[in-house]
C-alpha cells in the first residue's frame, strides 16, 4: 500500500501577491465550510468569482486575449454569470495558470489520444493546497460522512511515474487524509491486484473496519464481474462506501441501476452506499450523487457551494430553465489558480441545485460520406 507515497504538494511560497491572498482566503473558507457548512458566505460568491476573474484576466494572457476578443473586461463584468467561460478544448492548447511554472505545481492531464480531436488536455495547478482544501471537506461531507476513517482501497493506479490524472492524485490524497492504516492503491502496477483487494476486504470484515472503495466505473465493474464469475460475495462492514467515477465510457449494458444492484449482491452495499463522482481534469471541485438513477443519467449530484453549475443552450449558450438539458458550464472557485469558469462538452440539467449528468456530448455525428480523419490518423499513429 502506498499511502505514504501520496504526493506531497507544497504550498506556493506564501500567500504573496494577488493570487496568494485570494488562494489563502479561499482555502480558509473551504476548510471552514468543512467544519461548519453554515459558515459559507454565499453572499460573497460574486465578489470572490469576480476577484478570481480579474486576477486571471491580468495574469493569463491567452484568456485575457480571449475575453478582449469578446469585448469583455473585468470592469464590464458585475455578475459571476457574465464571466466568459473557457471551453475545455482550450486546455489542450494553452497553459492556463495564473503564475509561472514552479516545482511544486501539479500538472494533471486528461486521457486522450495523441492526434485528432482527442489530444490530451493539461491543467496546471499552482496551489495544490487549494485543491486539497476543496477536495477534502467535500469528500468527507458527500462521501464518507463526518469523522469516518475507513480503510481506503483505491482501484486507481497511484499518481506519478507517468500517471498524471487528477483522479489518481485525488484517490491518493483521500487515502492519505482519511484512510485507516494500510489505505492506498491496489493498482500500483497499473492494473488492480484483485487478490490484494480481496485480502484487504477480508481483513476489514474480520476487524469490522469500514472500507471506502475508490475506482473508475469500469474498474468497479471489472471487480464485480470477477466476484460474480467466482461466485463470491463479499459483505463490506457497516459504514462502508464505494465511489465510482467516469461512467460506462460507451460500454453497452453498463447501466447505473444495474451497477448499483450488482454492487449490492457482490459487496453487500446498499444503493445509498454507492456514490457516483462527477469530476474532470479541468475542475478542481467535484460533485457526488448517491444511489440509483434513471436510464442514461446520473443520480442527483451535489457539490460544495463554491462550485456552481449551469445548463446552457448548446447553440446560443444562453442559460436554460431549471430542469432543461443543456451543455454544462461550471464556475469553480477552486480554479482560482487557472480559470474559474469552464464550459464543458458534457450534457446535463440542474434541479434544485443538484446536477443530473447525462454524459459527454457524443461529438458531431458522422453524416454523409465525408471522412473524418482523426480516427484514421490515430490508428496510423
Amino acid at each position: 500500500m502506498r499511502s505514504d507515497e501520496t504526493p506531497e504538494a507544497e504550498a506556493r511560497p506564501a500567500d504573496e501577491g494577488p493570487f496568494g491572498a485570494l488562494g489563502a482566503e479561499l482555502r480558509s473558507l473551504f476548510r471552514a465550510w468543512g467544519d461548519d457548512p453554515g459558515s459559507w458566505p454565499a453572499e460573497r460568491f460574486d465578489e470572490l468569482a469576480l476577484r478570481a476573474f480579474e486576477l486571471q484576466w491580468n495574469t493569463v494572457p491567452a484568456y485575457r486575449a480571449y475575453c478582449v476578443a469578446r469585448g469583455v473586461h473585468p470592469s464590464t463584468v458585475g455578475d459571476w454569470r457574465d464571466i466568459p467561460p473557457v471551453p475545455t478544448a482550450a486546455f489542450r492548447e494553452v497553459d492556463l495558470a495564473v503564475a509561472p511554472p514552479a516545482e511544486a505545481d501539479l500538472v494533471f492531464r486528461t486521457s486522450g489520444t495523441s492526434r485528432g480531436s482527442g489530444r490530451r488536455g493539461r491543467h496546471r495547478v499552482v496551489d495544490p493546497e487549494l485543491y486539497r482544501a476543496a477536495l477534502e471537506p467535500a469528500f468527507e461531507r458527500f462521501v464518507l460522512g463526518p469523522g469516518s476513517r475507513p480503510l481506503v482501497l483505491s482501484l486507481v493506479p497511484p499518481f506519478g511515474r507517468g500517471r498524471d490524472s487528477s483522479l489518481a492524485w485525488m484517490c491518493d490524497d483521500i487515502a492519505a487524509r482519511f484512510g485507516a492504516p494500510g489505505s492506498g492503491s491496489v493498482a500500483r502496477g497499473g492494473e488492480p491486484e484483485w487478490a490484494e483487494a480481496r485480502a484487504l476486504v477480508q481483513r476489514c470484515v474480520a476487524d469490522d473496519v469500514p472500507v471506502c472503495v475508490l475506482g473508475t466505473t469500469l474498474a468497479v465493474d471489472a471487480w464485480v464481474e470477477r466476484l460474480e464469475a467466482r461466485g463470491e460475495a463479499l459483505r463490506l462492514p457497516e459504514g462502508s462506501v464505494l465511489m465510482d467515477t467516469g461512467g460506462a465510457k460507451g460500454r453497452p449494458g453498463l447501466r447505473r441501476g444495474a451497477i448499483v444492484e450488482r454492487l449490492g449482491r457482490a459487496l453487500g452495499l446498499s444503493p445509498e452506499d454507492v456514490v457516483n463522482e462527477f469530476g474532470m481534469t479541468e475542475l478542481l471541485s467535484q460533485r457526488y450523487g448517491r444511489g440509483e438513477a434513471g436510464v442514461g443519467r446520473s443520480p442527483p449530484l451535489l457539490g460544495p457551494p463554491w462550485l456552481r453549475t449551469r445548463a446552457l443552450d448548446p447553440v446560443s449558450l444562453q442559460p436554460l430553465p431549471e430542469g432543461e438539458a443543456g451543455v454544462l458550464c461550471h464556475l469553480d472557485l477552486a480554479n482560482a489558480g487557472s480559470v474559474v469558469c469552464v464550459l464543458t462538452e458534457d450534457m446535463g440539467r440542474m434541479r434544485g441545485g443538484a446536477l443530473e449528468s447525462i454524459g459527454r456530448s457524443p461529438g458531431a455525428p458522422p453524416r454523409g460520406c465525408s471522412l473524418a480523419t482523426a480516427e484514421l490518423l490515430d490508428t496510423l499513429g
Partner: protein
Amino acid sequence: MDGAAASGRPFRVPRLERVDAETVAREVRAAAIEARRQLSTAEVAMAASRAALRLSDPEDPAGADALEILAAELSWPEPLSRETLAGMARGWTREALISLVDRELGGPAALDGWTTSSSAALAGRRRRAAGPLLLLVVHAGNVPGVTVTAALRGLLVRSGVLCRAPGSEPGLLACFARALAEEHPLLGRCLATTWWPSMHEAPWDAWVKRSGKVVVYGGDTAVAGVRTRVPAYVDLVAYGPRLGIAAWLPDAPLEETATALARDVCAYEQQGCVSPRLVYAVGREGRELGEALSRALEREVARLPRPAADVATAVALRSARAEAEFAALAGKPVHLEASGETAAWTVVVGGDPLRSDPLPRFVRVHAVDDVAELERLLAPLEGRLQSVGYAGTVGLDALADLAARLGACRVAPVGTLAWPPPDWLHDGRPQLLPLLAWTEWE
C-alpha cells in the same frame, strides 16, 4: 418500429418480421423477372428517370413532398434542399442514365439480350449481363439523393432493389418509390424500401441471404457491420467514407478560387466525400486564402443558409473552434476565421495538416511549399481520397499524378467538386459494372 431522423424528429415504420421480409423479397424478385420480360433498358431508364426527376420539381407533388421531407428530417432550409435535389437530378435524367450505360457497357444491348462480340478471339460466343435479381442496398447515411441514385443504378442493371434507407433521412427514397409506382407500376414493384434498427435481425437475415449482391454506403463502422452479415458467396460493394481536398496552385487567382471553394463547401452541407475539407495553398500564404475563403463563405451562406446546428454538432463545433482560437492565442501558427458565434461557417488556417472534422461548412487551410511536400503530407491518406480539386495550372500535372498515386478518384477544378459528372468513377470504379454478372454462351 420507431426511429429518429437527423433532426431528432421521430418516425415510425412497419416492423418487418422474417415472413414479411421474405414476402417482400419474393414479390420484388418476381417483379424484376417480369420487368426483364416486358421492358427494355431504355424503357426502364425513361420511366425511372421520370419518377426521379419529379423529386426535383417543386411544382410536382412528389417534389413538394421531397422538400417537406428534407425539412422535417434534416431541418434543411428550402434553398439548400432545392439546390441539392437539382444537383442530384443532373444524374437522374434519361440522357444521363443512358449515357452511363453507354460508357460502361457500350450500350444497353447486353442488358437486353445476347450480344455477339466483334472480337475474333471471342468468335462464336455470345454474352449478356444483368444485375442480380435481388440487389440489397444499405444506406447508413449519405448526401440526400444518393439513395435515389443508388436505386436507379440497381434498376438500370435490371435488378429488383431492396433498400434499407438511412435512419437519418429515410423519407426521400420512399418518396421516389411512390413516384416510381405512379409512373410505372411494374417498375414500382421492383423497388422496396424501409428502415429498421440495426439490431433487428429479421430483415437483415431475410434480405441479405436472398440478395445476389449487397451494396453499402456508410462510415467504416457501418460498412464493417454489414460485411459481417454478408455470406462469403454474396458480393459486397462498399462505398465507405473518403476525403475531398483541394490545392490552390501558385498561379490561381485568389478571390475566384475562394468563391468557387465556398460553393463546393456549402453544397449539401459538405456531407459528401467529394466536398473539400482540406485546402492546401501551394507555395503561397495559407492565411491569405483563409481570409478570402471566409469572405466567400459569408456571401455563400447568405445565398444558401444552413440549418440550425443540432446539439452534438454545436458542441463539437465550439470545441474545434476553441481549440484553434486558443492555439493561436498560445502563439502557435494557427488562425481562426469563423462566423462569429453562429455555426454558419469556419475556416482554420494551420494546425494539423491532415485533420478533418465531420463538421458542416468547416474548412482547414494549410500552406505547403510545393506538390512534393503535399505528397509527403498526404501519404497516410492513400486510398482514402475521393476528390482532388485544383485552382491554377502551375504544378497541375504533378498534382494530378500525385492524386493518381494516392488512389484519388477524381481530379477536378474547384467550383465543380461537389457535383461530379453523372457517369463519374464513384470510389474509383464504374457504377454499374460492379453490380453485374456476365453470362457467356459458348
